[in-house]
């Protein structure tokens, strides 16, 4: 009973935070509401005894990813999100109607579905016997999920290279030793040329 009440509280707060995120005009407010949503999702993970996942949710999403979001907002010097009222007004209503329709469809379909118990019949109780959620996660990650785990490191490598390729600035004249391509920046007329 307590479990259900807590779940409902956290999930309602998470959804409310999500709605707030997409409706706030001030981007920083939207961002803080997104953090709020992440915290509530972490609480739900916590409630299902997935403590590791809960901590990751807070560390990585509410912590690290949000730092990036703040940086982007500062970079672009965004203040409020100026929607072009005239051009998108009708589209917005159609989109909202379609979203509600999809939501109803998902709820109707998924309400009639019985979900199978997970691989190996794991429950919170058996997980405690196996040494706790973090250990079960680690055992699975380094046994069955080994290849996706190693591929994930390659994905991280690509992200690193990509960020550097796209962001690293070319050296100006004088410090030519690690220059990027001199003359890479096109003239104003060439900027919009076909590539």
């Amino acid at each position: 009973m307590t479990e259900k009440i807590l779940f409902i509280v956290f999930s309602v707060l998470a959804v409310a935070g999500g709605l707030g995120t997409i409706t706030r005009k001030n981007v920083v407010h939207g961002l803080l509401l997104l953090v709020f949503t992440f915290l509530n999702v972490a609480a739900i993970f916590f409630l299902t005894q997935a403590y590791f996942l809960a901590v990751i949710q807070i560390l990585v999403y509410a912590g690290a990813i949000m730092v990036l979001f703040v940086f982007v907002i500062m970079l672009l010097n965004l203040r409020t999100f100026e929607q072009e009222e005239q051009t998108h007004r009708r589209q917005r209503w159609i989109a909202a109607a379609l979203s509600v329709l999809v939501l109803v469809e998902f709820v109707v379909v998924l309400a009639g579905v019985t979900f199978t118990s997970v691989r190996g019949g794991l429950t919170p109780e058996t997980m405690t016997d196996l040494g706790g959620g973090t250990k079960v996660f680690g055992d699975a990650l380094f046994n069955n999920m080994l290849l996706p785990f190693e591929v994930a490191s390659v994905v991280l490598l690509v992200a690193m290279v990509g960020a550097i390729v796209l962001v690293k600035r070319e050296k100006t004249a004088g410090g030519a030793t690690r220059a990027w391509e001199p003359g890479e920046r096109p003239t104003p007329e060439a900027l919009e040329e076909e590539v």
Partner: protein
Amino acid sequence: MQWPDLVPVIPELILLVAACVVLLVEPFLKTEDGRGDKTAVIAIALTGLLGALVVSLALVGQDRESFAGMLVLDDWAVFFKVLFAIGAGLVILMSPGYLEAHRRHLGEFYALVLLAVVGMDLMAAARDFILLYVALELMAISSYVLAAFFRYRVRSNESSLKYFLTGSFASAIMLYGISLVYGLAGATGYAAVGQALGGRGGSAGVLLAVFLVAVGLGFKVSAAPFHMWTPDVYQGAPTPIAAFFSVGPKTAAFAAIMAAFIVAFPGAVQEWGVFFIVLSIATMLVGNLYALVQTNVKRMLAYSSIAHAGYLLTGVGAMGWAGNSYPGHGVMVYLAAYTFMNLGAFGLLAYLKTQMPHSFDYSLKQMAGLGRRSPWAAVLLSLFLLSLTGIPGTAGFIGKFYVFSGVVWADLWWLAVIGVLLSVVSAYYYLRVIIYMFFREPEEEYEVREPISGGMAASLAVSAIATVVIGILPSWLWDSVASAFNALFD
């Protein structure tokens, strides 16, 4: 625990090592003007691809699985690994001059192409939804970066941003579908999912999961109505990369669809068959009709690649409709044929752009008189365009022939008729380019900058030879496709 069997991933390991070496060598390449001589990284990248190609060919006929059944090595996986290695090699060969002309020749380009190929290889070899997703992300993230490679160019930025937003949206949809599959089946391996869901037939929950996974992969093959990113992304991406996008990720997504859907969703074959048939009709219509009105040749080829995805989807739909893998044979032949002819067509545009880096804007108008300016380029482009149309004697005809005969085999003759009719429509926009090249007077004189580089010539020559050889002697291709299908489904 056991040490994993690494033999099935040797080609990917070679590519990964080559990419890492490129990344480690690149910062040390310096010449006096600060630009660096990139011959070394190109050589490393090509050696890696060649190594992966040779090893893949040496592994023909194997049948083993590794990493707890997530990944297999069979003729199916080898077929796609070979195709991806050749395709990426052709892309790398055509790139240096083009990048040099845009003053943005960096070794990272080659490393990212290699890493994208690793992702594509794993997509084709995966037998598990989780590996499929991670491999798809590896391919996709490399692609987003490559699309934005000309970071000061407005179009390149637009291309990458549109690709990234729609692509990550599609990935999220697919991931949601995979999570439903896991919830319903309690497993993520294709075979295990098929066993768990086989008896449940087309219940609403299963259909929703199948639908979401199909939509996510439909984005990657640019099936209508999930195609709207394609023209802008291809037009704005560097041309060799547009060539890569049009064959690589698309082929990988088709490989994943064919490998996953028959095995994992056998209870709902009719339903997903119909879904792909509907998609295929929409895709063929949208691709062909929009291509008719394009005046930018690069954009026209983007719409044409949508149309080709439509032809391919008829075969996939027929697989589901008949509940049999046989129509898939034609899809695989088509994918091989399409790789060469499309890389050739885009490669030729890259060559023209390299010659005139500032004045060439890919417009039909500027194609006028090409037959006189550089006759062999015009002849080659004509060959690729005729092949894309599906003229007998070219690879495109063989591909279409096998796909549509598979569709007819599945008693969907009306679908094949639609496909053939729309191929006739496509002749208009392909032949129009040829007419401009040979029979229109140019409005202005163009200054041709430099002769063709050896790499570009090799790339175009291989594409052209393959287009003709597949067109005349398709039986070896058919045999390797048949052995790939035997490996997968028996």
